[in-house]
């Protein structure tokens, strides 16, 4: 049937999963079989609850989990996740970790706001951290990103790369978080190429590659040569369409999102990506907890200045010239000379 997706979509690729789906079958997870033990003296335990996207969402849930795995490997912490399958799972799942004596529990995604507030109030001695949403309680640390700033930079790349002066933006759903991407991107394009026209298509679903593909086909057919996606699983369809056009000898570009998507989709069609470094944030905050430096009650906002968003290190498809421009604009944003809009 239709898929459950009452989710925050606090990230572009917030691919929601159906209630029937996605759960960890991670026999490899070493913590799994260990009995619950209070962490007083021994190993520290860090848990995370995903939103409906699940831990393999190729987006922030996955990034967060990768960060925790690194924490396990590098710092010897014991880590574990649980995947939500519906909105009402957030509270019991957060509670599971609290009851199991975890030192820190992550809630990944916009929609954890209510749940985290409730559980954090019920358990003032437990520690929580959140991605993409903020809760003002002494035992909660919140991490937000300035997606509009990173999107501005890829907008610059697109504006300077386009030959047809037609650029597309494919969003998952028309939600404020995704509109932050759109706004930043449009501003970036306009800054370097006022003649270029950005066509916007929200496909209405983070989970429908077929709709993404159809949207991409329509845009490319209409002469757009670059598409920036912020559409979760639907974005796969955009990549598929682009790759097939590439194979048929037509040059079109996609700008990826969240991670360096060229790693997955290759360099044939991936122009660059708008990265959102959830992994770094999760690692950093978790590490602080291990070291006893938890900053409860604080909300950090990660933008270009903090290195929370930006382009990948390597951009083989972007010319040095353009990259130089990107740097210039980056500095202007960091310095505050340019204020990037958050809504289109």
């Amino acid at each position, binding site marked *: *049937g*239709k*898929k459950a997706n009452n989710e925050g979509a606090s990230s572009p690729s917030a*691919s929601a*999963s*159906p209630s*029937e*789906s*996605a759960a*960890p*079958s*991670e*026999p*490899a997870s070493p913590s799994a079989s260990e009995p619950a033990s209070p962490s007083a003296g021994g190993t520290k335990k860090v848990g995370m609850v995903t939103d409906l996207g*699940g*831990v*393999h*969402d190729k987006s922030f849930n996955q990034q967060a989990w990768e960060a925790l795995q690194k924490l396990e490997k590098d710092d010897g912490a014991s880590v574990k996740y649980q995947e939500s399958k519906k909105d009402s799972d957030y509270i019991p799942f957060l509670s599971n970790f609290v009851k199991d004596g975890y030192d820190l529990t992550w809630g990944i995604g916009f929609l954890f706001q209510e749940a985290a507030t409730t559980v954090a109030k019920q358990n003032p001695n437990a520690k929580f951290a959140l991605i993409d949403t903020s809760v003002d309680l002494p035992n909660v640390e919140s991490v937000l990103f300035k997606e509009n700033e990173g999107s501005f930079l890829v907008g610059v790349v697109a504006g300077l790369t386009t030959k047809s002066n037609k650029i597309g933006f494919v969003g998952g759903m*028309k939600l404020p978080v995704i509109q932050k991407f759109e706004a930043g991107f449009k501003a970036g394009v306009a800054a370097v190429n006022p003649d270029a026209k950005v*066509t*916007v*298509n*929200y*496909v*209405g*679903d983070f*989970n*429908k*590659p*077929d*709709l993404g*593909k*159809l*949207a991409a*086909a*329509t*845009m490319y*057919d*209409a002469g757009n040569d670059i598409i920036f996606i912020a559409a979760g*699983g639907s974005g*796969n*369809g955009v*990549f*598929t369409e682009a*790759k*097939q056009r590439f*194979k*048929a000898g037509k040059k079109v570009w996609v700008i990826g999102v969240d991670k360096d998507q060229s790693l*997955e*989709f290759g360099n044939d069609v991936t122009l660059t990506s708008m990265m959102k470094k959830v992994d770094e944030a999760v690692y950093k905050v978790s590490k602080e907890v291990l070291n006893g430096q938890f900053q409860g009650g604080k909300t950090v906002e990660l933008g270009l200045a903090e290195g929370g968003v930006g382009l990948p290190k390597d951009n083989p498809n972007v010319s040095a010239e353009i990259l130089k421009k990107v740097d210039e604009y980056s500095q202007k944003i960091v310095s505050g000379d340019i204020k990037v809009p958050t809504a289109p």
Partner: protein
Amino acid sequence: MAMLADLINSTLVFSAALIFAALGGVFSERSGVFNIGLEGMMTGGAFAAAIGTYYMQDAGGEGASPWIGVLCGIAAGTLFALLHAYATVSVKADQTIVGVVINILALAITLYLVKFMFEGAGDTPLLDATFAKVAIPGLADIPFIGQALFNNYPTTYLAYVLVPLSAYLLFRTPFGLRLRAVGEHPGAADTVGINVTKYRYVGVLISGALAGLGGATIVLTTTSNFSHNTISGQGFIAIAALIFGRWNPYGVFGAAFFFGLAQALRNFITQFDFAAHIPNEFLYMLPYVLTLLVLAGVVGSVRGPSAAGQPYDPSKR
């Protein structure tokens, strides 16, 4: 004009999977067995197609691998159909329940296997060896029509073939006559010596094969991998197309095309500036509202095969 050709072209990509699955439904329901499980059979097909293609391309069979994938998809769909047929035909279980069960099982089993095979990953790796669009020499050069109809995926061409073939099978051959007789009046078929059980099995198995093909089509032309959301509702839309198309292959083609067109249209509209003033949700609703309006306004009531939904029990009068 070129725009229109592009529009039709995209529509056909989108519709192909629907056509296959709905055609499958035609065979099953014409034989007297409801198939709410099309969604699940598509899921099974999509999964197997992804896996088959993946291992084939790993083994170096780049060129042939999507076709291997197609075959795997068909096989997987058929396998789920076998379960359906056994329960509904042999054991005479409620056809709707079994369909719902197939949907639940297919998704759970495939996801479980994906995680099992790819160390906990939520989806299969991306495939390199998917189908590419092929222009049919000669035909593709016809102005307008060429771009609209003959510059598409092999699966789309397969749909062109399967629709008339199905119609031929159903309406021109002894097989079709018997299959339809079994779906309309199994008692009548039985008394002229037609094996009702056999024909129902065949009907359901064909539906599974075609639904599996539909699932494979989505993977190999659209998503390039399998994940939990590869099939998300297409099976149900196929059921709608099946009814809309009045259990007739050509009707099904028309219905699936209509639905694809409505989807393509909504994307098409976003190319124009006025689209910015239409709330997005209204665009999303467009295909569904259009379908409903057409059904309510034009099509009127439809009647399916009389015996569909009822297990055949010769001793029951």
